[in-house]
Structure formats: C-alpha cells, structure tokens
C-alpha cells in the first residue's frame, strides 16, 4: 500500500477542501508535515484511519465530532454539510480511491446531528480502462484485506505514545498483528473452525448411527472440549491480567523514581532488583549444571559397594593364581599341533608321557576370555572410581557455588525488603506510602495469578490427555452401518487435518518470531546507545535484555525513549518482513494465499520524547524503515540533527498553517533558509488550518 494523496473536506481543523500529495520515490520517500501544537497533526494522522476503517486512535479527543467548527457555524439551522476524507493509494498492481463521508446537519437548537458515515470505494485494476465501483457490501472487506484493521496501529501512530508496544500488556496486540500481517491467522482460524463447529456437527451426525457406548463416548468428548474451551478462555484472561498487573506495577515504580522523596530509594531498589535477577539467573544456570551432572553420573553415588565387590573378585582371582595365567593356552595348543616339546625336541608315540602332560596343561591353563574380561573389568573399576571421585568433587564445587549464590540472594533480599519498607515509610508522604502499599499488593496478586496459571496449564494438559483417550475409544468402537462408518471417517479426517494445520501454524509462528527477532536485533543494534539486546520472546513480548555475569536478564525500568526505540525497531522489522514476503512468497503463497505487502509508516511526533543520544540515530534510520514514510513534527522537535538526517530523503513537504484569532500567537518557521508563516492571525477570527506545500 503506497499512498498517493489524501483529500480532506471540513475534517476537524481543515476547513474546506485541502489536498496533500505524498512522496513516493525510492530515494526521496519521506513526506514531512510541520505543524504547531493544535494545528492538526493528530487530526491528520486520524484522517487516514477514519477514512480506511472509520476508526480513530485512543488519544484523539471527541472522536465523534470530526466536523470543522467554522464550517459548521456557517450553516444556517436545518442546513447540512459533508465531512469527507478521500484517499488515493496503490496496492500491488491495483489503484484505489477510498472515500468516507459523514453528513452533519445543524439542528434548530444549533446542535449537530450526525449521520453515517458512508464508505465509497473505487477500484482500478492494472491495464483496465477506468475505475469501477465496488459493491457496498464488499468495500470494507477489500480494504481489510489490503490492510487488516488490527494492524493500522502499527503503521499509523503517535510517536510519543508508541512505547505501549514495549509494555507487557501489548503482547496480545503484537501476536495478533503478526498473525494477520504474515498470513498465519488463516491457519489458526481454520484449526479453530475444524476442531469447533465442523467436528461438533460431524459428531452429532455420528450419534445418529451410534450405540450406547459410542454415544456416551461422544458426549464425554464434547464435555471435555467445552471444559477445554473454558480453560483456554481462562488462560487468556489470566495472561491479560498478569500483563496488566505488571504494567501497573512498572508505572507505579516509575512514579516512585520520579518523586523527590523516594527517588534515591527507588534507584537503590532498582539496583538491588537487577542484582537479584542476576543472582537468580546464575542460580538457575548452576542448578541446570547440577541436574546435567547428576543425570550423567548420578549412578556412581550408589556404586561404591559394587565397585568394592568387583575389586575383591579380581584380587581373589589373583590370589588363587588364576590371574595372570602362567602359560597362555594358545602356546600349549601350538606345541601340540606341531608335535614339539617345550624344550624343542619332537614329540610322538615314543613320548606318551610328555604328550599327556601337555594335554593336561592345556586343561589347566587359564581361559583367555576370562582373563581378558577380568583385566578389562579391573581397569574399568579404576576408571569408574576416578570418575566417581571427580563427580563428587564437581558436585561439591557446584553446591558450594549455589550455596554462595543463595547466601548473596538472602542478603540482597534482606536489603531489598528493607528498601521496600523504607519506600512505604509514611514520613515520605501519602503518595509515596500509597504507591508502596499498592506495589506490595500487586506483588501478591502477581504471585497468586502465576500460581493459578501453572495450575491451569496442568488442567489443560490433563484435559488434552483425556480427549486423546476418548478419541481412541471412539475409533475402536464398532459401527455396523456404512453411512455411520463414513461419518466417522470424515470426522477422523477433519481431526487429522486440524492436527496438521496446527503443526504448520506452530512451525510458521516460531519461524516468523525467530526471523523477526533477528531483524529487531539488527535494527535495534543500529540505534542502541546502551549494550542491551532487543528481542521478541516466545510469548511475543518485546523485551530488552542485558548480560550480567554471563547470564541474560531482562532490563528493568528502561526509559520511555528506549521503549520507543524498541517499538520502532519492531515496527521496522515488521515492515521489512512484510516487504520481503511479498517477493519471496512462501508455503502459503504457493497455496494461493496472499503474502506480505508494502506498508507506509505514518508517524506523529516520532522524535518527541527521545533522549538526545537516540534522536539523531532514529532520524537516520526512520526513512529506511519503510518504502513510504510520512512524518508530522512541531518546530521544537525538528532539531538540527534530525534535519540533517532526514532532509536528503524528503520528497514532499507541507506546513499546517494555523490561523488563529490571537494576535500575540504569530509565528514563523525557517525551512531550507526561507521563512514561512507558521501561526498567522485569522482575518475573520475563525480558527482553522491551511495546508501550504513547501516548494
């Protein structure tokens, strides 16, 4: 999706009809829109989403009142006006014109009466003569296919609020968005339909041909499935709850760090928590090492008696003279075969006594296999005894390390508890005390919720085993009727296909996550100031980690700016992946499903709350994130380092010229050495914004 132009008619600050054209070239892909506070940057951002989906962002005040106030006040009572946003864009080889309108009538009491909105869509296929109207019922569907509605917040966003993506509660949005964008949603939905409605219908059909046993098994299975659905819903709810609790906790902790009276303690707590995480990580590593050693050599701990008994056997054999054998059996056999005495004289019928003696020796000499086995056992016993000693020594070493870590953990915990208690000291004031109290409550709630989650996972696992067992029972029961047998076969095929799709979904999901992980790490690495690593966890949470003592641990209390850069890295990786996918296809592509696409990035104030260290770097890589970038900035955000980085990529540039009645508000803006009006005095006293293109 590459946007060619956007036309606004009486939409919020934009009076009358005003049009913006956007940069679409490869080298100059950035469209820059300058605007004073209140000039309509957020309104412009929301014009895109309102046009496409009839939706606006959470920070868009009074979302229903989209009409321009001046235009409305010009209406005489009973008269109507139209608010319209029209967008012209290209997607793959087709071009589209989307238009959303809303009729506003001024009622006799001067209040607005709003109807609609209505959606119009013109579509032109490549090489066709002209645009064609799309059937009303299919319009939104076509737009949703080009840009799934749950994805727009990844591409059209307020840069100052985008750190929400890096919050624990965002994992669901992140995962859902990824599934939509990368075409794996269709797999998951197919599985749900097959295992849900389709399987249920076929089970009901089968009951018509079933005996009592089969009916009972089918009923049992349905009950188990219903319970499983309840478990899944509960698991989802618990996950959301835990994420929300963590988000609230982080926000409150941030507030503690902002309060003058608790700042120092909050920083101390932050340091102690980092130490605690590091120690817990080290303890986990050592415990894993202990488990590995015990699993490999643990049997040696109980082998002392066996090793001693074996040694005794070998010693006894030696004492009896069985070991080592005095004469090797092969030597005696060779003498007999060659008819030679041990002294070299020939043997024969003349020397029956010597022959007899040799034959007797052959019986008496030790058995080669026996000797070899004993010799091998003897050396094995030595090796095992050494290994046993090494095992105990390594185990002692690791246990000592674990004990040391545990000791440090105890000390750290004691200090942490003390700091937490001080944070809640009423002497610090009501707000500090209430923050500490609430954080302690949240800690408890999180612990309980995690315990519930663990228990629920056990229940889910048991339920799955029970379902499998009943399925086997259904498969084994006899059905006399051929029609019933056919339904059972259909039902089992559905189940088999659902399992295959589920497996493909899991593989695809993990593949996508790993791929995005690599891209996020690369993009983050370009901008990161600190030695943190960015990743997408298996739970689809954006995470910042760092290495402490060789162990990776999550960064606690990352700054807003860092979270914004992390969120931008994720969005950039998403756009990058979607762009790659459109060219590479993949297994879904091969099966006829569409893959990936080009997406624009439309950002309001992306540099607003970034620290100095990040601003220049982010400005440098934002134009590279997507084939089309539209940036809205205020003059204060458009700093020299941002200008230097972005300017070479700017293809179109606009000023949202704010017309105001306040005389003292007049301002101008300097662009490329020229001065332009920025805030001007409105001659008729009306507040409005006029788009001016900078040529």
């Amino acid at each position, binding site marked *: 999706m590459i946007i060619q132009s956007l036309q606004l008619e009486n939409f919020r600050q934009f009076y009358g009809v005003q049009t913006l054209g956007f940069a679409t070239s490869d080298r100059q892909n950035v469209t820059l829109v300058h605007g004073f506070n209140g000039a309509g940057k957020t309104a412009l951002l929301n014009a895109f989403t309102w046009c496409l989906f009839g939706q606006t962002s959470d920070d868009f005040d009074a979302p229903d009142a989209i009409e321009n106030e001046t235009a409305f006040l010009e209406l005489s009572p009973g008269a109507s006006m139209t608010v319209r946003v029209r967008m012209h864009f290209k997607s793959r080889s087709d071009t589209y014109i989307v238009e959303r309108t809303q009729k506003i009538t001024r009622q006799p009491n001067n209040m607005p009466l709003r109807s609609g909105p209505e959606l119009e869509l013109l579509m032109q296929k490549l090489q066709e003569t002209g645009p064609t109207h799309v059937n009303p019922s299919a319009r*939104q*569907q076509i737009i*949703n*296919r080009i840009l*799934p509605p749950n994805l727009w917040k990844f591409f059209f966003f307020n840069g100052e609020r985008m750190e929400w993506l890096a919050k624990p509660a965002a994992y669901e949005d992140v995962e859902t968005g990824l599934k939509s964008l990368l075409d794996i*949603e*269709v*797999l998951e*939905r*197919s599985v749900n*339909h*097959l295992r*849900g*409605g*389709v399987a249920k*219908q*076929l089970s009901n059909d089968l009951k018509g041909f079933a005996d009592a046993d089969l009916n009972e098994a089918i009923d049992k299975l349905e009950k188990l499935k219903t319970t499983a659905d309840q478990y899944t819903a509960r698991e989802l709810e618990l996950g959301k709850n835990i994420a929300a609790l963590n988000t609230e906790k982080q926000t409150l902790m941030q507030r503690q760090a902002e309060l003058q009276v608790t700042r120092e303690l909050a920083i101390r707590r932050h340091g102690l928590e980092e130490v605690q995480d590091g120690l817990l990580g080290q303890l986990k590593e050592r415990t894993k090492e202990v488990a590995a050693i015990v699993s490999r050599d643990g049997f040696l701990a109980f082998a002392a008696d066996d090793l001693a008994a074996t040694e005794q056997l070998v010693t006894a054999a030696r004492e009896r003279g069985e070991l080592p054998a005095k004469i090797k059996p092969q030597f005696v056999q060779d003498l007999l075969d060659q008819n030679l005495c041990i002294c070299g004289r020939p043997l024969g019928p003349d020397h029956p006594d010597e022959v007899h003696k040799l034959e007797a020796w052959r019986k008496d000499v030790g058995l080669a296999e026996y000797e070899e086995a004993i010799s091998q056992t003897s050396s094995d016993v030595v090796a095992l005894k050494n290994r046993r000693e090494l095992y105990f020594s390594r185990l002692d070493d690791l246990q000592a390390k674990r004990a040391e870590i545990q000791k440090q953990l105890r000390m750290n915990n004691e200090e942490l508890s003390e700091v937490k208690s001080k944070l809640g000291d009423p002497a610090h004031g009501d707000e500090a005390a209430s923050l500490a109290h609430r954080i302690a409550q949240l800690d408890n709630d999180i612990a309980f919720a995690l315990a519930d989650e663990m228990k629920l996972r056990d229940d889910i696992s048991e339920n799955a085993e029970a379902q499998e067992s009943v399925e086997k029972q259904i498969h084994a029961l006899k059905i006399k009727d051929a029609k019933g047998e*056919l339904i059972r*076969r*259909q039902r089992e*095929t*559905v189940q*088999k*296909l659902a399992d*295959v*799709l589920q*497996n*493909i979904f899991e*593989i*695809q999901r*993990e*593949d996508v996550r790993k791929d995005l992980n690599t891209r996020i790490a690369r993009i983050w690495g370009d901008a990161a100031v600190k030695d943190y690593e960015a990743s997408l966890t298996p739970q689809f949470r954006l995470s910042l980690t760092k290495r402490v003592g060789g162990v990776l641990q999550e960064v606690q209390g990352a700054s807003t700016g860092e979270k914004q850069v992390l969120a931008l890295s994720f969005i950039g990786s998403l756009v990058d992946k979607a762009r790659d996918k459109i060219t590479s296809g*993949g*297994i879904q592509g091969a*099966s*006829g*499903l569409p893959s990936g696409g080009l997406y624009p990035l439309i950002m309001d104030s992306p540099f607003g709350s970034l620290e100095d260290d990040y601003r220049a770097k982010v400005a440098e890589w934002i134009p590279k994130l997507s084939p089309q970038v539209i940036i809205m900035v205020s003059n204060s955000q458009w700093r020299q380092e941002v200008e230097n980085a972005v300017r070479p990529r700017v293809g179109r540039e606009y000023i949202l010229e704010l017309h105001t009645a306040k005389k003292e508000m007049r301002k101008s803006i300097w662009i490329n050495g020229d001065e332009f009006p920025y805030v001007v005095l409105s001659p008729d006293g009306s507040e409005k914004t006029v788009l001016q293109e900078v040529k």
Partner: protein
Amino acid sequence: MTEATEKKVELLQELSETERKLLSAILKIELDNLHLTKPHVVNDMIAAVRDHIK
C-alpha cells in the same frame, strides 16, 4: 529450502491426495471468509468434507 519449510512439506506429504485437496479447499474457504462480518465458514467446510470424503 529452510528447515521450517522442510518440516511443513513433510507434514503435507504424510497426507493422501484426497486429504491434501480437502485441506486446500478448507484453507480457501477460510481465506474467502477471513474478513467477512457474517461468515458461513463451518457450513462451507462441512460441505467440502462431505464432498471430498465419500
């Protein structure tokens, strides 16, 4: 071919020709209805199952 693609191909190869055709039909139904507000996915899928497994 990536490891993930190999695994997916292996899974598909374990299916019979009929099962593969049914799978394609199911995915097509799902895709056609992905963004519809009133989908008839389940009924369409059952019809496809009956059509393929006779």
